[in-house]
């Protein structure tokens, strides 16, 4: 990775973490467009088929800190997975060789 790319990743992660810190405080807790539409037409809530480790971006017992930590964990995991996927499926051949 070039220095420029390192800066890109660092700057990107910092922006993401700033969002993660602000989000639990300023994000609206109103239902989102789909949930609200579902309420409006009277769809009953359904139990999820599967128990996730941090349901609804919360960590049990921790309030806002837990939300921030859950988001930070998610950001890092997403970053790593996307990096690995991109690395696995990047272009193999040099530009001239590919048609």
């Amino acid at each position: 990775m070039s220095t420029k790319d390192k800066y890109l990743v660092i700057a990107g992660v910092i922006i993401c973490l700033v969002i993660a810190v602000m989000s639990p405080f300023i994000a609206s807790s109103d239902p989102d467009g789909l949930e609200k539409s579902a309420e409006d037409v009277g769809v009953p809530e359904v139990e999820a088929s599967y128990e996730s480790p941090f349901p609804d971006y919360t960590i049990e017992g921790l309030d806002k800190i837990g939300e921030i930590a859950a988001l930070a964990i998610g950001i890092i995991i997403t970053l790593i997975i996307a990096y690995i996927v991109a690395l696995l499926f990047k272009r193999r051949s040099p530009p001239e060789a590919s048609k």
Partner: protein
Amino acid sequence: MHIPDGFIPLWQCAIYYVIMIVALYFSLNWARKNLDERLIPLMAVLAAGIFAIMSMNMPIPFGTSGHMLGGALVAIVFLAPEAAVLILFIVLLVQALIFGDGGLTVLGANVVNMGLVGGVVAFFSFKALQKFTGKYLAAGIAAWLSLFIASEVTAVQMWLAGTFPLIEGLAMMGLYHFFIGIIEAILTVVVLIALDKVRPDLLAWNRKKNMGEKTLEASEEVAAK
């Protein structure tokens, strides 16, 4: 607008999974042909950024809220809807597996509406508008359209699933996402302007058809301006 488990019957979930897998096949093919080594960090950062921004629900009128999808941004940065499908798939998978946001059975349906529909609509509307309106206005409109149409496709999915009545679903989803789309458009344009300022070489619209050395020249020219 992550569809939760239980909103769509399982046999329909299976159909969306098939569509998603076909779309992912094209995405991976695209990556094999076009994803330069130097674009890997950008891909990772965009995925993390989309994960983060999706947590930021902004209040909109009528007691509801909405968040950016980011599919339009990815499709325009890479000028490839395939990239949007791939990144949204990764983000939605993490959200479903670790945070229970959007169900696992409906992962296919969520990737189809947010990634595939969002990415394809953004890409083609950007392409069509770019010449007439300039790239930033085109990107803004494309982002708005991609979110709005993705939400209407979700309404249709809900109708096919028997969860929403068609007209009411289209009207509600359309009304709420009309406003969410404005947020999506603004953020998409802001990120594009920022990227064009600091790393013009990473934006596909600054790259010429034949990659390689010309890419560097082109990006240096842009940087010099």
